[in-house]
């Protein structure tokens, strides 16, 4: 991971991303602003970077370091803007099993960064006017040029698209000014994102808390073998920046939930739902309804898929036909029922195509209809979705006047619930492990006698990642533990729960399970 930032670098945060229980060595390099250069006194330094290319080139350098040396991870962060003497300008860190590899990787990365990154440095001298120095990309030219452009040209990039007679300059400018949120960067999300990013949508948001797995690669074509285990939103954003360095991307590395959905959706003009479960689909749908945001929704099943658009919410919504969220047992994930990669690639592409049409007012959209596609038989069916006056959301007398968390609850066996009640814990018999976040001295004696003990965050981390049993995290009130569990759920760990209400609600029947 490489970051370019105009904010002060926090080394502890950087280290936190690197830390790994397997690592026997961590080597860090700190590049500081010094007070002299080639005999002249320097008062301050200004860095300017062409960020898209920095990210691409930086990713290459990091990948090379991983390839050359036996490291677990290596990352770096570079400052831009005005820095004072002594400020941290660049930081590189590498973890490895042994120190040799960590030293070598760290040195390799900083050496390569210095010569390959399109970063320019302006020195402010004590005795005379400031001057640009150390400009690698354009050392042969005198410094009369601007530093923002690099070899990338929007006009050249979009040459073929701009030749389209049905696509005016105004339409293109509209796209450049648009902000689109793609929820879920999996089977539907990857092709949708690719089309958006390479066709001129200026600002894209991605929300996904999932990580890349090997079984995703056959259809999720923004990812490669190197991305396995990494967050999908983050890896997708890096790949998209390679495809089109001029696009602005926000990677929200979390699933949308009741708490964050309004805040995130608010920032965009249009939402594309590429999720794979009813809970997320209804959550995003209802949020878009209440925020009056256009929504493009799709689902796939084996060789089939359907897509529907809600641009004008007065013409009906999903709840007009499916008033309640269907039971999860109706669903079956792509892994369970199987999916042919062509179905999500085609439907995700259609979603992005419809988004571009909506944003630029081109063609005719699918509004008020669902399109059902069967790639086994080549049957395409447009089915009219009449508005239902009895609809609980958009009907004449709506039952759902506002969103509430219970509208998006799923049955318990699917582990959507973060919290577990005392009674449910008792039902688990001994097939769980209870771990308390507090210091041993803070845990009341009676619970300690019954087997409740203090665990460090590191110990809890190891158990969540390795123990097959259910992990129940506790604290006094269940607030701290809920926050911690939420973090792991966002990373895709479903086997961990927070005790609802904390141990203050424990019944006397509590006994800890065996590890």
């Amino acid at each position, binding site marked *: 991971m490489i970051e370019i930032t105009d904010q002060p670098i926090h080394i502890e945060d950087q280290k936190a991303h690197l830390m790994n229980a397997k690592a026997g060595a961590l080597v860090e390099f700190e590049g500081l602003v010094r007070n002299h250069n080639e005999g002249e006194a320097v008062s301050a330094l200004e860095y300017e970077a062409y960020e898209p290319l920095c990210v691409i080139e930086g990713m290459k350098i990091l990948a090379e370091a991983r390839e050359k040396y036996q490291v677990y991870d290596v990352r770096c962060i570079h400052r831009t803007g005005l820095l004072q003497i002594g400020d941290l300008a660049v930081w590189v860190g590498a973890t490895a099993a042994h120190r040799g590899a960590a030293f070598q990787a760290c040195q390799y990365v900083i050496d390569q960064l210095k010569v390959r990154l399109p970063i320019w440095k302006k020195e402010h001298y004590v005795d005379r006017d400031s001057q640009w120095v150390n400009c690698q990309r354009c050392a042969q030219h005198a410094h009369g040029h601007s530093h923002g452009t690099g070899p990338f040209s929007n006009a050249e990039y979009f040459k073929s698209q701009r030749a389209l007679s049905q696509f005016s300059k105004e339409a293109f400018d509209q796209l450049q000014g648009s902000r689109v949120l793609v929820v*879920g960067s*999996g*089977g*539907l*999300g990857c092709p949708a994102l690719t089309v958006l990013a390479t066709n001129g949508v200026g600002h894209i948001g991605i929300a996904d808390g999932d990580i890349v797995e090997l079984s995703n690669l056959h259809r999720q074509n923004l990812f490669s073998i190197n991305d396995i285990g990494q967050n999908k939103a983050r890896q997708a954003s890096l790949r998209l920046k390679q495809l089109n360095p001029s696009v602005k991307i926000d990677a929200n590395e979390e699933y949308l939930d009741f708490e964050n959905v309004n805040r995130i959706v608010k920032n965009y003009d249009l939402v594309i739902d*590429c*999720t*794979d*479960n*009813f809970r997320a*689909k209804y959550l995003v749908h209802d949020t878009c309804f209440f925020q009056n945001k256009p929504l493009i929704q*799709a*689902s*796939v*099943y*084996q060789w*089939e*898929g*359907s897509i529907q658009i809600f641009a004008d919410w007065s013409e009906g919504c999903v709840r007009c*036909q*499916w008033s309640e969220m*269907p*039971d999860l047992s*109706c*669903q*079956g*994930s*792509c892994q369970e*029922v199987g*999916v042919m990669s062509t179905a*999500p690639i085609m439907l995700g592409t259609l979603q992005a195509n419809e988004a571009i049409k909506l944003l630029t007012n081109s063609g005719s959209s699918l509004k008020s209809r669902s399109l*059902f596609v*069967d790639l*086994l*038989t080549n*049957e395409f*069916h*447009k*089915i*009219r*979705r*009449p508005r239902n006056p009895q609809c609980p959301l958009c009907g004449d007398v709506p039952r759902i006047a506002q969103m509430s968390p219970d509208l998006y609850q799923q049955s318990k066996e699917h582990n959507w619930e973060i919290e577990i009640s005392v009674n449910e814990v008792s039902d688990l018999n001994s097939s769980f492990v209870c771990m308390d976040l507090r210091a041993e001295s803070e845990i009341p004696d009676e619970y300690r006698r019954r087997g409740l003990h203090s665990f460090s965050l590191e110990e809890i981390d190891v158990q969540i990642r390795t123990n097959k049993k259910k992990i129940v995290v506790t604290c006094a009130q269940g607030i701290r533990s809920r926050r911690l569990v939420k973090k792991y759920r966002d990373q895709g760990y479903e086997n961990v729960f927070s005790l609802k209400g904390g141990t203050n609600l424990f019944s006397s029947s509590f006994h800890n399970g065996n590890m």
Partner: protein
Amino acid sequence: MENEKQVKVRYFAVLREKSSQSEEVVTTAATTYRELFVELQKNYNFPLDDTQIKVAVNDAFSDLDQAIQGGEEIIFIPPVAGG
């Protein structure tokens, strides 16, 4: 029989999977789409009941309790969320 009607039925997703076909012509004595679905559900062992699916008739979502006319194209649609 006199009160039997012929309709074309299309299947999507799990319904197609269970019936092993994308479409068929059905001759039925059922009077509503709901009755027809219940009949087909028994035949093919569909894992969904009539409260979990929707019906589209001649390419528009319709009500399961509408009367079968005869000659129409009926699509039974299960909920799908894959992505």
